[in-house]
């Protein structure tokens, strides 16, 4: 806390700061309240499990939840092993000033900033057309995997770097090979970070819309295989709000489901963040 006194300028600035904080809080409570108010009325168990009818104006979001799950599943199965190996390479096999490591880190920073619509274009060109996958859950998941890789690699790398170097030194002193050290000592110690990184990536993937429209498509049926087109929750909200007259009530309910899921995911991530730090410290 800084000192307080009561000059005119001082009182003005204090008022301004409280006012802007209050204003922002009000606007955001308005947004959340509006979402909750309109969404809650529509929400029920049958809404979650039944299929959409009449272009989504009636019925539920069962198949859409299922497709979202599949897209996220594809995304994570591809992104996790790739992210894990890159993070291991960055943290264990390169020094801070290593040229390749710097290059990789630099391009990760850039990748993290690339707009999602550009990922959508890229996914459409590579997975849908060059690989011939068409509009499918598979191409949507692969596109999302490219999107979440930067955030995933960053968190994983941090968690490897957070492991006390005594652990590596003791392993080396015991004559363990580098790969054994990685597999049996460092990997288990990094598991909390692994979980947290995947939760964060999951959150980002779930919130995504723009990258999915041209890769996983619009179809709101229950998908029969990964090659089918499937609609994610966020695309469903967009479609109901923009293209379907009278779709707003169900759009609100879907938005509430999506925000609720993301809230749970974020809550898990911050809970993990509080839990995992002590695990990596060696007893003194």
């Amino acid at each position, binding site marked *: 806390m800084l000192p307080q006194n009561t000059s005119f300028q001082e009182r003005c600035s204090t008022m301004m700061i409280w006012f802007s904080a209050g204003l922002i809080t009000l606007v955001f409570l308005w947004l959340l309240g*509006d979402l909750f108010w*309109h969404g809650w009325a529509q929400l029920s168990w049958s809404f979650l499990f039944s299929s959409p009818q009449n272009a989504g104006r009636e019925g539920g979001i069962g198949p859409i939840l299922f497709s979202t799950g599949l897209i996220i599943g594809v995304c994570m199965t591809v992104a996790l092993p790739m992210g894990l190996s890159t993070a291991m390479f960055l943290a264990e096999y390169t020094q801070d000033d290593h040229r390749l490591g710097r290059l*990789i880190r630099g*391009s990760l920073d850039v990748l993290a*900033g*690339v707009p999602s619509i550009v990922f959508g274009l890229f996914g459409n060109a*590579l997975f849908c057309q060059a690989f011939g996958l068409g509009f499918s859950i598979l191409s949507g998941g692969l596109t999302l995997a490219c999107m979440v890789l930067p955030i995933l690699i960053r968190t994983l790398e941090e968690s490897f770097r957070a492991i006390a170097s005594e652990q590596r030194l003791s392993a080396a002193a015991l004559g363990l090979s580098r790969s054994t050290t990685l597999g049996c000592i460092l990997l288990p110690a990094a598991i909390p970070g692994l979980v947290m990184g995947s939760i964060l990536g999951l959150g980002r993937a779930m919130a995504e819309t723009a990258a999915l429209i041209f890769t996983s498509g619009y179809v709101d049926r229950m998908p029969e295989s990964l090659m089918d087109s499937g609609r994610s929750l966020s695309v469903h909200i967009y479609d109901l709000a*923009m293209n379907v007259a009278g779709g707003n009530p169900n759009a609100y309910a879907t938005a509430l489901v999506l925000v609720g899921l993301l809230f749970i995911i974020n809550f898990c991530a911050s809970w993990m963040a509080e839990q995992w730090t002590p695990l990596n410290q060696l007893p003194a």
Partner: protein
Amino acid sequence: MAGSLLLLIVLFLLQESWPAFQHVGLSSYFNDSDWYPTEDLYLLTPMLWGTVWATLGSVLLAAPLGILSALFIQYYAPPLLAIIYRRLIELLAGIPSVVFGLWGLVVLVPLIARWHPPGPSLLAGILILFLMILPTITLVAQTSFAQIPVSFLHSATALGLSRWSIIRKVVFPTAKAGIITGIFLGVARALGETMAILMVCGNIVQTPSHLFDPIRTLTANIALEMAYALGNHRSTLFVSGLLLMAMVVLFVMMAESLRHRNLDAATKY
């Protein structure tokens, strides 16, 4: 791995936009009479202006308010309130853009329409983008305030400076790089934002002349026309994707270099 992915993305965008460079040429993007892809007219400037004005407006709003609310968290709010307020801002940072778009479409646009029709406008886009980038600017600025060595604040207090003077003369200069980093990251997010802006801006191709004009941004243009675009039209959309990526990458790289400088400066003391 990541480097090759980046290279792959750029290569694919280039490959897909190559026909447009060959058959349409860069000059037509700025000199054609209008945007009518079916008649081979590809004027990109209205969309470019739409993107620029929406981004500029939202950043001009979000930068001061973001800095003020970061100050609120760090120096003004009682501890409990500061934690609650920070949690709220973090929660908002995680809300998907399509939900912001839905709220804008259902609540904000009718409000603006009542005040000055038509509702979907540059103003709606600016307001929604403002809400979306505010958390970024607030959180980055607050982190850099928190990194200021306590001894700075203590010495300033010992000199008898008032709270606002300390903020102006000590906090702002020390945290300058961090604040600017946050703003650049906000700009990058605003430039690349698609869904929310697509839902509230009206999507009419025109260079906006005032706040209540409907606009279409580069990102919205891609999202709207990609579904049916073929040939040169499709390549042109890839060109605009390339353009967007270049702008965003520029801002992200500036932000990153500043952040490293900020960290170096902070560890010196």
